[in-house]
C-alpha cells in the first residue's frame, strides 16, 4: 500500500499540537456527523508493484494489431523519439496553466510557438492555445459564428459523425440549429448548400479531407457561404495540410481540427488536441487561452496569457467559452512534432500517406472491391462489396490486421499512413480477394 503522503505519524502529532486540536477528526467538525460515510466500499490499497502488475495485465488484454488500416478520426503515425523525450520533461508535465508568467516563460513561449505553427499551417492570422479535441473545436467555432439573427449552422453530411454529434449538443443548448446536408457523390452538394443558405445562416462547416477521405472544393463552398453572409469554417486534418492548400487560401474564416495526428498516439481516443485559428478581426471571440508577446519592466521580451477579458474567470456568464483547463501538453506535443518534422518532413509524411492510400485503392480494386466515390482522396477511401464487409474484416483480423471501418454491410472506410507498407497492402489485397 502506498499513498504518497510523506507526513510521518510523529510529525502529524506535532502538527496537530501546533494547530491546537487533539486529533484529525476535530478538523472536520463542520461536517455534519450523520452525513459522514463509514467507509468506502472499495478494495484496500495495493502496493505500487501490484498496481503495475494489475494494469500491465489489463493492458495485455487489449489487442495491438500488427498492422492498422483504420482511421476515421484517429490516425496512427510515426512519432519521432524526440517528441516523447521533450514532452515528458516533468517541468512541463507537472506544471499548471502559466498564471505566474515570471516562472512560466518556458511554457508560455512553447504555447506562443504552437500558436504560430497552427497559424502557419492553416494560413490564418491567429490561433488559441488549444481546445479539448477536434469535435469540441468545431462546436466552439460554430458558436463563434452565431449572431442574434444568424442561428443556423450548415454542415455537410460527410463530416465525421462524432463531430456532428458534439456540434449538435453544443448548438442545441444555445437554441441554435444544425442543418446537415446530404452529400453528392461523397462531397458537399453545392446545389443543396445554395438552397439551404439564407439570411439566418451563421456559418457553413465542412471537413478537409472529409469523413470519406475525399478532398472538398473549399473555394467553391466558401464562395457560396460568403454570398449569403455566412462564415466559412473548415475542419482540417493537419497532416493533409502538408500538401493541401491552406484553409485561409480557400476563403475559410475559421480553421479548426483534430491535432492528434501531430505526434499523439491513438490512446483509445484521448487525450487529443483541438486546434482553432481565425482572422485577426475575430480574435476577441476566440474561446480559451491565448499567449501574447510583451515586455517586462526591464524592456526584455516576455510572454503572458492575454486577452483574458474573454475568459470565464473574468467575464463569468458572459465569457466567450467556459473552457479553463485545455490540452496544453498535447499542444506542446504537436509543436515538438511539427518542429521535428519541419518543412520537408511534413510534406514527406503527407506524400507517403497519399501514396500508400492510392496504392491500396489500386490493389483492393484489382482484388474485386469497388471505390464508392470517384473523387480525389487523401489517405482514406471507401470501398463497396455487397454484403461482404464483415467477411473482409474478419479475414484481415485473423491475420492480425485491423482493417478499415465498416460503414454498412457493403462499405468499408480505409486509411493508410507512412506506417503501412507495400507488403502489408499486398497481403491485405490477397486476403480480401479470398474473402469476397
Amino acid at each position, binding site marked *: 500500500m502506498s499513498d504518497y503522503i*510523506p*507526513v510521518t505519524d510523529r510529525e502529524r502529532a506535532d502538527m*496537530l499540537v501546533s*494547530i491546537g486540536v487533539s486529533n484529525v477528526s476535530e*478538523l*472536520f467538525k*463542520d461536517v455534519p456527523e450523520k452525513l*459522514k*460515510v463509514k467507509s468506502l*466500499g*472499495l478494495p484496500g490499497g495495493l502496493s505500487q508493484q501490484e*498496481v503495475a502488475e494489475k494494469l*500491465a495485465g489489463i*493492458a495485455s488484454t487489449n489487442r*495491438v494489431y500488427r498492422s492498422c488500416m483504420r482511421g476515421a478520426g484517429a490516425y496512427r503515425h510515426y512519432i*519521432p523519439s524526440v517528441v516523447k523525450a*521533450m514532452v515528458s520533461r516533468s*517541468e*512541463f508535465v*507537472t506544471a499548471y496553466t*502559466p*498564471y505566474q508568467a*515570471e516562472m512560466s516563460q*518556458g511554457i508560455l513561449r512553447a504555447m*506562443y510557438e504552437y500558436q504560430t*505553427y497552427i497559424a502557419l499551417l492553416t494560413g490564418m492570422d*491567429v*490561433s488559441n492555445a*488549444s481546445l*479539448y479535441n477536434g469535435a469540441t473545436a468545431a462546436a466552439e467555432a460554430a458558436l463563434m459564428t452565431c449572431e442574434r439573427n444568424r442561428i443556423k449552422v450548415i454542415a455537410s453530411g460527410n463530416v465525421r459523425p462524432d463531430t456532428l*454529434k*458534439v456540434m449538435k449538443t*453544443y448548438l442545441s443548448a444555445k437554441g441554435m440549429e444544425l442543418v446537415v446536408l446530404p452529400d453528392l457523390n461523397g462531397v458537399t452538394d453545392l446545389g443543396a448548400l445554395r438552397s439551404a443558405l439564407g439570411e439566418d445562416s451563421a456559418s457553413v462547416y465542412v471537413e478537409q479531407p472529409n469523413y470519406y477521405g475525399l478532398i472538398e472544393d473549399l473555394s467553391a463552398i466558401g464562395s457560396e457561404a460568403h454570398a449569403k453572409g455566412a462564415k466559412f469554417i473548415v475542419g482540417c486534418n493537419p497532416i493533409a495540410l502538408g500538401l*493541401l492548400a491552406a484553409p485561409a487560401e480557400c476563403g475559410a474564416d475559421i480553421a479548426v481540427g483534430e491535432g492528434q495526428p501531430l505526434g499523439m498516439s*491513438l490512446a*483509445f481516443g484521448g*487525450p487529443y488536441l483541438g486546434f482553432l485559428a481565425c482572422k485577426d478581426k475575430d480574435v476577441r471571440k476566440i474561446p480559451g487561452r491565448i499567449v*501574447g*508577446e*510583451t515586455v*517586462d519592466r526591464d524592456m526584455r521580451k516576455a510572454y503572458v496569457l*492575454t486577452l483574458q*477579458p474573454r475568459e470565464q*474567470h473574468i467575464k463569468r456568464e458572459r*465569457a466567450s*467559452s*467556459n473552457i*479553463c*483547463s*485545455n*490540452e496544453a*501538453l498535447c499542444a*506542446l506535443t504537436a509543436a515538438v512534432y511539427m518542429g521535428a518534422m519541419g*518543412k520537408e518532413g*511534413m510534406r514527406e509524411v503527407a*506524400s*507517403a500517406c497519399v501514396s500508400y492510400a*492510392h496504392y491500396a485503392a489500386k490493389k483492393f480494386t484489382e482484388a474485386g472491391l469497388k471505390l464508392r466515390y470517384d473523387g480525389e482522396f487523401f489517405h482514406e477511401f471507401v470501398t463497396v462489396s455487397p454484403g461482404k464487409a464483415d467477411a473482409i474484416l474478419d479475414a484481415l483480423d485473423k491475420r492480425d490486421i485491423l482493417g478499415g471501418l465498416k460503414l454498412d454491410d457493403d462499405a468499408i472506410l480505409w486509411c493508410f499512413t*507512412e506506417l503501412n507498407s*507495400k507488403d502489408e497492402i499486398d497481403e491485405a489485397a490477397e486476403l480480401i480477394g479470398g474473402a469476397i
Partner: protein
Amino acid sequence: MKADKLIFERSSRGARAATIRRPDVPTYTLKCAVRQELDFPEIPEVTLVRHYTALSREAFGVDNGFYPLGSCTMKYNPKLDEEIAALSGFTDIHPLAPEKSVQGALEVIYSLGEALKEITGMDAVTLQPAAGAHGEYTGLSIINAYHKGRGDFARKKIIVPDSAHGTNPASAAMAGFEVINIPSDRDKGVDLDALRAAAGADTAALMLTNPTTLGLFEKNIEEIAEIVHSAGGLLYYDGANLNAVMGIVRPGDMGFDVVHLNLHKTFSTPHGGGGPGSGPVGCKAALEKYLPDPRVVRKDDGKYAFAYSEDSIGKVSSFYGNFLVYLKAYAYILTLGAEGIRRSAEGAVLNANYLKSNISDLYSTEEGRCCMHEFVASVEKLKEETGVTAMDIAKAMIDRGMHPPTMYFPAIVHEALMFEPTETEDKATLDEAIAVLREIYAEAKETPETLKKAPHSAPISRPDEILAARSQKLRWKKQ
C-alpha cells in the same frame, strides 16, 4: 543554450530532425490544389532538444517545488501512473477497434466509473468530459434534459453563489441557462434567505462547491438541499474541492444530484501546463438515461460493451474522453484504496490547517473555524499599512523557489491569497513555506519597495499585460 530565441529564429535551411521510411510504392501526386510552401522551420535535432530543454528550465511544476495554487490541487503526480499510461496496450489501441479487441480498455472505463460512483455516492458516471468545465457543461445539460423530460420547460435558471469558480456561470450560460448570482452570508456560506428568495419554479439547479472556494465546509448543506429540492430544482456539485472530503462525506449523501470531478486535481493526474484534464460526471439514477453516449456496461458473461440511450444528451467529446488521463486516475485509486483515499483528504486538511495556523497572526484568515484543504488569506491590512499587495507577496515567493498561491480569488475577499498545500507535501516543506511567508511579511514592513520590484531572480521581471492586450502580438512573424 539560453531560452532567448523562438524556434522559428533557429531555423537553418536544409536542416532536419526526424526522418521517415521512404515509401516502397509509387509516389502519387494529387491533382487538386496543393500548397506552394509550408513555411515551417528547419531545425537540426540537437537544436530542437536544446531549445525545449531550455524552455523546460523556465517552467515550474510540482516536481520543482511547493505549488500551493488554491483550488487547483497541485498534488504529486505518481511516476508509476505515467509509466502505466505509456504501455503499448493502452497507447496503441484504436478508439474504433472492435469491442472484443479492447476489453481491457473497456474494463478500465467500467471499473473506474464504479469506483467514482462509490466515492461520490452517485448511481451512474460518464468519463467523457475532458476537463472540469466540460464536466460542468455536461452535468448541466443532463439537468436540462431531465427537467424537459418531465415536461417541465420553465426551469431556465441556474443559481450560483458569488464565491463560485468562474467556470460555473460560464458553463451554465453555454448550456443555455440564465444565471442567478446570490451573495454569501456572514460566515461566507450560502445566504439562505437569498437562496429561498431565488429558488422557485424557474430554478433548474443550484451549483455549489463544498468545501467552498474559501476552503470552508458549507455547514448548512442539508438545509440548502431542502430549499432547492422543495422548489423542484436539483443540486449540482462542483467537485473541484473534493480532495478535502473524499472518503469522509459523499456529495450524494449531502443531497447532490449531479457531480463533476477533476481527476487532474483530486486524483493526481498531472496538469500538463494547463491540460489535458478529465472531468467525469456522476448523477443519481433518475438522470442516468441522459448521460452522454456511449457508456460502458458489463454483460452477464463478464464481457464489456458500449451501450447507448435514446434519451442521451448526445456526445460532448470525440470518442470516450481523455482515456490516458483517467487511466492514471484509476491507477491512483487502486493504489490508495478506500483507506488511502480517506487518509489523503485528512492529510490535505491537516496540511492546510498547519500552514494556516502558523501564518494567520500575520496574514488575516477566517477565524474560529478549521479550514478544509485550502484557506484564503487577505493582505488588505498590510496593503493599507505598507502598500504591499497580494501580487507583491506572490512575486516574492517566486524569488524563494515556491509557486505562489491563487491570487485575487474569490473576489469576495480583498487582496486574497488562496493556499492549498495538498497532502503530498511533507512537514519540512510546509515549515519552509511558513518561514518564507513570515520573512516576506517582515520585508513588506521594512522595505516594501523591494517587494514591489519582485521577482528579482526570475528570467523576467513583471510583464506588461496591458501592452500585451493592446499590441496583440499573438504569433511570430517573419521580419
